[in-house]
């Protein structure tokens, strides 16, 4: 327990404290209290605006896409077919991969003369030379697509458990009433999955704010801060530029987002009955 206090509780209070001082790593000046100066400076930093915008965009798009596609995959692997567990394992495999490795492989695939452009070319009949990771308009979408691919199997597994928890009698009753597959999905599957869907969505939204590995490996936050994220910026400001106060301010803002989402998730969960 002492360890928990030492490595979580105290550092967290320290982060709040540090965010109010001008602490540097090595500095000739003594550390002094500067009030909210770090916060105003961070909020005026264009890099932080980029980072925050990207995190919010990621949190709005990626979890929703993953949950939708994950539900599709869950329905597919929920069929009683020989060999279905092999497909389940294949769809899940990227989740257990090391994110750094996935990011490096995708960097190569996203090269201008790489596999992804060639693949798009085959399916559209044209020749594509998109410079994914060096184009400010494409770099962050590329990271989002990669992230959806990498973690959709996680959503699939959670949603599959939700699917299997719906009593079979409900579907039988639906069939007796003459409901077709679509109506069964709309009136039985979706309502029965509501808690699982909300849970999956919020868990992914919370982790959206700690996005770090993908931009660190694939773009370094560039081009022109197009792939900057709060955690990447925190490392750059705190570690590379050694401005501890401002980095701590980012940490506190990051935590406020995570806490707010967690509280909303809890409230929604309570309203809807019990939740995982």
């Amino acid at each position, binding site marked *: *327990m002492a*360890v*928990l*206090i030492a*490595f*979580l*509780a*105290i*550092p*967290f209070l*320290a*982060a709040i404290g*540090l965010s109010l001082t001008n*602490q540097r790593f090595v500095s000739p000046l003594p550390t002094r209290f500067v009030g909210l100066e770090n916060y105003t400076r961070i909020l005026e930093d264009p890099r932080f605006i980029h980072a925050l915008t990207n995190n919010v965009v990621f949190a709005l798009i990626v979890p929703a896409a993953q949950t939708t596609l994950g539900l599709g995959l869950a329905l*597919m*692997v929920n069929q009683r*077919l020989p060999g279905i*567990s092999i*497909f389940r394992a*294949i*769809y899940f*495999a*990227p*989740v*257990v991969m*090391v*994110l*750094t*490795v996935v*990011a490096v*492989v995708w960097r*190569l*695939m996203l*090269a201008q*003369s*790489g*596999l992804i*452009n*060639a693949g798009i070319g085959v399916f559209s009949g044209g020749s594509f030379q998109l410079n994914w990771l060096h184009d400010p308009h494409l770099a962050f979408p590329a990271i989002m697509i990669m*992230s959806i*691919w990498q973690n959709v199997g996680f959503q699939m*597994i*959670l949603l599959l458990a939700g699917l299997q928890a719906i009593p079979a009698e409900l579907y039988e009753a639906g069939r007796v009433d003459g409901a077709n597959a679509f109506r069964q999905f709309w009136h039985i599957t979706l309502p029965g999955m509501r808690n699982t869907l909300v849970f999956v969505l919020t*868990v*992914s939204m919370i*982790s*959206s704010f*700690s996005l*770090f*590995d993908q931009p*660190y*490996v694939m773009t370094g936050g560039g081009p022109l801060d197009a792939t900057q994220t709060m*955690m990447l910026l925190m490392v750059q400001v705190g*570690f590379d530029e050694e401005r*501890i106060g401002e*980095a701590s301010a980012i*940490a506190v803002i990051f*935590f406020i987002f*995570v806490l707010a989402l*967690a509280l909303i998730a809890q409230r929604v969960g309570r309203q809807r009955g019990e939740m995982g």
Partner: protein
Amino acid sequence: MMPGPRRDRIVGLIVSYALLISVAAVFLVPLLFMLVASLKPDLDVLAESNSLKAFWPGRLENNYFEAFITSDFTRIFLNSVIITGSVVALGTLINSMAGYALAWVPFKGQRLVLAFVVAMYIVPFQAVAIPLLLFFSGVQIVDTYLVQIIPFIASPFFIYLFYSFFLDLPKELFEAARIDGAGIVRSYVSIALPLIKPALATSAILSFLLIWGGLFWPVMVTRTEASRPITVGLSQVAGMLPTQWGDIMAMSVAISAPILIVFLIFQPAFIRSIASSGLKG
């Protein structure tokens, strides 16, 4: 001519499998691409990556030999093995002991401690990373194994996981053990632990994945190859020009292989464990 319903069933099966297989291709292609590229000379990797040759090794080159023998990748790989092994072993031990104490060893302030553990679960590691970095620089143990092990041993998530597993065990079990003269330690080791194997597996699998693949903290606390883990090593090699894609892909395969093999063997336990967490996004 086949009768109608039977023919419909067969058509349905073909459609199902066609869909399953084409989606499987989306997930397998990058992995296959990585594996094939790891066997090619550096220049061929990029040059052939926009054609079907991407999936066929033409000229072969032993990038694995180059990566493991002639670079410091072996050292970095061993670093990761030691760091990950330590966190998995110590973390599982400490967190299961804490969970056991909270569930079955009455002590003063127990409820308060439990509430504290639950509250700490919400604090993400990233939020405390900067003060921790400052602290570890202060006591001068950056760029060591220790700095990569210590912060990850105690975890509120795992303590709570063990706590809830232990709590589900029947009370009579421990009363019987007490009557037989077993102390706290004996009933923890020989009665409680063997009954919560799924929790032990979950703890081991999740902390293995988290530490083996962790990049964020090592980026800040490692400087040299004496302590650098595989993730930082790989991202550094991938950042150097000219990019040695063959070697990089060989390292990527070497990093992924242990996980994929364990995953294929213990697939149900793996999937169950990850489903019980909000591991990563």
